[in-house]
């Protein structure tokens, strides 16, 4: 950006001849960009067109609810709760891992840890789901028992604790591990891009390593952290298979994190209900998909806005 150059400014280039390669390349990139827009528009149109009949669906197709909103709200609640728990766990963890890789660990160890974290992103979600339901859940049962016995006065741990450990907290933990590599990878890149001069200036003023990170690295990478968290949130919101396998899901609104009666999520509900759905029932499921689409879109959009605004601030 601001690197001083010693070479004299080049003479203004003569108007380049249009080469066939340039034209082709430009065209193909534009087509690629266009395809994304068309695909997104196609999905939006499909969801809207197929989802509209759900607004007029009767109670038989809405699991006994009278309106579509009453049907979709518990699912939306579950989706947001699971994603929120996931981010609450994943964000500090990811920032810690990213800082260790970029600033604390010796280079060789940092490379290894970075590689392993990237590997986490390549594990299929169904594997996380099976692991969560068959290993993590049962292993957490004593913890849930303890929580509901000793902290049962909090609505979060009201219980009764699940006998199989397939609870909202387990789902949140699994989602946190799934969102971790995305957040870590982006944070790591951004932390390591902090201008060396800023860091050295902070250290020269007598700052400790931690103070330097707080004074130089974090302010510089704030927007990047936000967009990384938003991408992780996108993953947590849309995750289907892992949640469907892990969560003991009901269509309810409940803050209880340790009981086997947990609110379902939109994506998991679609996956579980679709095979036997017919007629308007399919429209109802697609309409919940539209709700998820809008939420995800809003999340990504707001992330972009935050990033754009902070970047403007940085240039100044």
């Amino acid at each position, binding site marked *: 950006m601001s690197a001083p150059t010693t070479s004299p400014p080049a003479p203004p280039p003569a108007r380049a001849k249009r080469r066939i390669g340039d034209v082709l390349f430009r065209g193909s990139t534009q087509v690629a960009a266009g395809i994304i827009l068309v695909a997104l528009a196609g999905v939006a149109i499909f969801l809207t067109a197929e989802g509209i009949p759900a607004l007029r669906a009767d109670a038989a197709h809405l699991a006994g609810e009278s309106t579509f909103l009453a049907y979709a709200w518990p699912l939306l609640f579950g989706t947001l709760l699971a994603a929120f728990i996931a981010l609450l766990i994943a964000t500090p963890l990811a920032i810690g891992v990213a800082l260790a890789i970029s600033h604390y660990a010796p280079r060789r160890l940092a490379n290894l840890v970075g590689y392993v974290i990237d590997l986490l992103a390549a594990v299929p979600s169904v594997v996380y789901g099976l692991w969560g339901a068959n290993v993590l*859940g049962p292993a957490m049962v004593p913890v849930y028992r303890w929580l509901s016995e000793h902290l049962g006065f909090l609505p979060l741990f009201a219980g009764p604790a699940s006998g199989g*450990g397939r609870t909202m907290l387990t789902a949140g933990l699994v989602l946190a591990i799934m969102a971790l590599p995305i957040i870590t990878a982006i944070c790591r890149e951004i932390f390591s891009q902090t201008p060396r001069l800023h860091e050295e200036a902070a250290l020269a003023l007598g700052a400790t390593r931690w103070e330097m990170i707080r004074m130089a690295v974090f302010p510089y990478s704030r927007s990047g952290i936000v967009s990384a968290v938003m991408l992780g949130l996108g993953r947590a919101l849309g995750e289907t298979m892992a949640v*469907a396998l892990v969560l003991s*899901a009901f269509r309810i609104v409940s803050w209880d994190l340790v009981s*086997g009666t947990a609110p379902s999520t939109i994506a998991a509900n679609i996956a*579980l*209900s679709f095979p036997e759905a017919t007629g308007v029932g399919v429209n109802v499921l697609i309409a919940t998909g539209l709700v998820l689409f809008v939420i995800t879109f809003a999340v990504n959009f707001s992330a972009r806005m935050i990033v754009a605004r902070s970047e403007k601030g940085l240039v100044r």
Partner: protein
Amino acid sequence: MKTTLRRAAKPGLAVLALSVALTACSAANEEGDTNATGSGDDTGSSLSGTLNGAGASSQEAAMGAWRAGFQSANSGVTVNYDPVGSGGGREQFISGGVQFAGTDSLLDAEELSAAAEQCGADPIIIPSYVSPIAIIYNIDGVDDLKLDGATLAGIFAGEITKWNDPAIVATNPDADLPDADITAVHRADDSGTTDNFTAYLDAVAPDVWTHGEVGEWPITHGEAAPQTSGVVSAVTNGQNTIGYADASQAGDLGQVEVQVGEDFVGPSAEAAAKVLEVSPKAEGQGENAMAYELARDTAESGAYPIVLTSYLLACESYADANQAELVKGFLTYLISDEGQQAAADAAGSAPLSDALVEEAEGLIAKIGS
């Protein structure tokens, strides 16, 4: 005409090849239209062509065995079965998209008249697959559990919450039942297994189980798990759990013996077949139907009342003579001793009794063009 159809089917075939795991139903449908005529393979069997079916996923394992058996006996034949679910299968059958369909539940009046219109006569309905649903449990130190219908309903309805509840102790005086919470596991998805299980609860204990016969779990009690495998692993991995699943998938888990009359009966193929024999025919399914109103509250000794019955739908006549022959051949194989044994081995279903087979043969004989 034929070449254009074949050309049109080519991408369909390519899709089919690419998406083995996705069970490309649309591609399979296209194929069916083009391959209806015989190719004259000299395999000792006169049958050739492609037969398409869709429907209940409960029949999938048995259908795999039937397809393999029928195709190896008739090398010119391809049978496809898309396990889209009972509702989807009936829908495709009524619209003429598939030649036969598998369904866990019977047709309603509207579907029946639409199917009769499509077929030109009342559709043929035969019980192809009868399978016991086991009540599985995992309690430390308890190897033998006997329950009556009302207690079972109480456990799943959430009225009985401890394993040492007097109602459970009453039928298990010798068992070492723990003072622990019951975790009752049920299916999270809409399923024929749930439908049949709740039908049983509704029949034997309507005052305890007040939620009727439903495919989707109606109450917020217990724990939900997806698919049969999910329920089995939730019961296996949890503590003091109980659930219900197709008996063939129950593995090493303990299986509840249910009170029938004065006796306690565990799930077995023979006991499941027996309940069909003592059940009356269902009304209003047309004249070609072997559909049963299962006697779930039967007191007949040796019958196990919690069963899943799955039916096959076919037409009496098909526009294409070859299609009719294919359907007839496939169904004949399916209810033969060989076919029933193949399903029993592959899916743990109960072979139909001789009387039922005879009746089904009579219906299948009607198929023609």
